């Protein structure tokens, strides 16, 4: 058994292969691998005895899941209402230019994935940029460049 699948088994076992824990299991796998591969989903389907079609339904329905590889560094721009009225679209433009990828895309070297989120709940600090879990409140073009350059 490959090393990757044994890690998946650990996650599934932790949740006692309980069908009602399916979303929680997928969340942990997504966090571990950054995406959900076909072989992993097959494994989940087999061990939980849930049809693969249902697992695909869930993994395409929720935004937290990705069926394509994501980059090592995740860059998110909040597009919540408070951020929107305070210029989030312009922040997104700047980040798009700096990363040279569009929202939802992953750079060819799989270094970055740029995603937009609907609200991070930091509405008073907007517009908000998050790079690898670090929050930036209304960053200037220079701060954006620095935040991106800090990603190795």
């Amino acid at each position, binding site marked *: 058994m490959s090393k990757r699948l044994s890690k998946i088994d650990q996650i599934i076992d932790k949740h006692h292969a309980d069908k009602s824990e399916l979303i929680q299991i997928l969340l942990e796998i997504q966090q571990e691998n950054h995406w959900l591969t076909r072989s992993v989903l097959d494994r989940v389907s087999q061990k939980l005895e849930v049809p693969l079609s249902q697992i695909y339904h869930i993994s395409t329905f*929720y935004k937290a899941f990705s069926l394509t590889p994501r980059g090592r560094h995740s860059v998110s721009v909040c597009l919540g209402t408070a951020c929107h009225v305070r210029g989030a679209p312009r922040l997104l433009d700047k980040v798009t230019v700096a990363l040279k990828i569009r929202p939802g895309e992953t750079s060819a070297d799989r270094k970055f994935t740029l995603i937009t989120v609907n609200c991070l709940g930091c509405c008073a600090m907007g517009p908000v940029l998050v790079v690898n879990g670090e929050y930036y409140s209304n960053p200037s073009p220079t701060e954006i460049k620095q935040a991106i350059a800090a990603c190795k």
Partner: protein
Amino acid sequence: MAKLKTLADLTQKRQGILSKRAEKRYVAINSSGTCGLSSGSDKVFQALGEEIGKQGLSGQVEVRATGCLGFCENSPIVMIFPESICYTKVKPEDVPEIVDQTLVGGKLVERLLYQGENGKRIAREGDIPFYKHQSRIVFGNNRLIDPKSIEDYIALGGYSALAKALVEMSPEGVLDTVKKANLRGRGGGGFPAGTKWETTRNAPGKTKYVIVNADEGDPGAYMDRSLLEGNPHSVLEGLIIGAYAIGAHEGYVYVRQEYPLAVENLTIALNQARQYGLLGRNILGSGFSFEVTIHRGAGAFVSGESSALMNAIEGRVGEPRPKYIRTAVSGVREKPSNLNNVETWANVPLIIDRGADWFTGIGTKGSKGTKIFSLVGKVNNTGLVEVPMGMTLRRIIYDIGGGIKQGKKFKAVQTGGPSGGVLPESLLDLPVDFDQLAEAGSMMGSGGMIVMDEDSCMVDVARYFLDFLSGESCGKCVPCREGIRQMLRILNRICEGEGKSGDIGLLEELSAVVRDSSLCALGQTAPNPVLSTIKYFREEYIAHIEQKRCPAGVCKALVSYYIVPDKCQACQICARECPVSAISGGKNLVHVIDQGKCTKCGTCIEVCPSKFDAVVKLSGKPVPAAPPPGTEVTRSRGKKR
């Protein structure tokens, strides 16, 4: 820690904690909340601990990492008790001075105090206008509690309401009190919580569930996050009391995955409550047993709808179902399931503790108690505010919020998230409660209050919400899936300058269909942002459609940026910062924007020094011809370089 087995154990425990603390003063820093962390409060927390240790004050002063303190824009905030001195925007390098001057010397560090109107510095938290006009009965304990410490919560009288309910009251008595208090759901609908509890209690079946809805999907609202992060035990205590009244022995907390810190703090709280015997088997020796499981969402707005949320708890896709039978009767695993929002649950211990009469003494005729709003957008003091129901919008926005940023003109306030609407200036004196907001064409929702100024375009706001909703519609029913998409297409056309006469009528017609025939509240309320903007700001729609003009200068296709030749001082900043190199001109030469290349990102207008103000935004009129290449700048005020 030995389990607390009786009410007397809990009282004794509290007295024990208090006696140890009596002599200690403490410093609160909002480093256990996401907004605090995004402004670097964790570094201030660390610096405070180190400096206090260095000065040998560890025995007398305690540093407490609290959750959100509400005044988020002034983060990191340091509060010193018992004086309740409030320092704002504190940096780690300010810490030695705070410890030296205030904790040791008993003096104030003037420059870190909040600066009110007329530049006057305000020392005490309660004197700052932002806090002064609030009634923080639910949210106020955040500043006194380290959410990772159950002792902090017990010290404030926490879990005494639970003890009272379990020991002194019958389940029916608890239910009656909540009904009498007329507590209405804080998640959006405003449905009376007591009535809902009763339905679940009376529904057939032995197994029942109680659930906390912490999906808080409304963009622009974050009070549930702040409560769960900052005071998780208050929500948990409310939930256990509710479970007792309803007769449930299992509960769930559904938290959206965008709130990792809320999950972390809640997990700690659950474990502590179990250790103390406040959760689990035979709580406080009453014979009542209750357990809670956390369920993380995975990023879907519609999953906050009750039937969808319950599907998700079962591990299925979080899509709604028709509610011919309500979830209160048939919810999780087809068992009676009572769902309430975070803030609703957090009100329950207060009602049990202080009684229904106290609660009904606050608020308006139909809406009792307080409501937490997230006051955000173009307002000076952004943050979380808790006010009695019935306070007017004007008092919230001007007295607490300090008015509009940069002295601009108020245009509208958006309440209720994507299901709500916008309210114009003429309604500023509207008392805010469930019924008044609904009557004005908006709704309370979860309490988002997004203030917009003259630079916000109302058509763009409607477009923004429909764009959000069309992405979040689960697609199960046609009116919502297709209706919203068609409405969005029309709004996109209008924003791009392709609007046609008759579009407004078409939008209204589609709105009626989507509202009347969608399966769940997402679709039924989706037209609200469109209808309310048309109702109050029709002239903006007409300007977009007929004059191809965006009065606020937001819609990209309808604006152009232009450098006024007489004002340009050739400082070259805009040319350097322009991300697409669309600006030409060298030293001493008037800069010109290549309209073909310009992506209208607005960087040039942002970076142009305010003393020059050379870049202007035009809408609805042609861009003047550029000066011939090589035109030299006119130096202002005779200055020569």
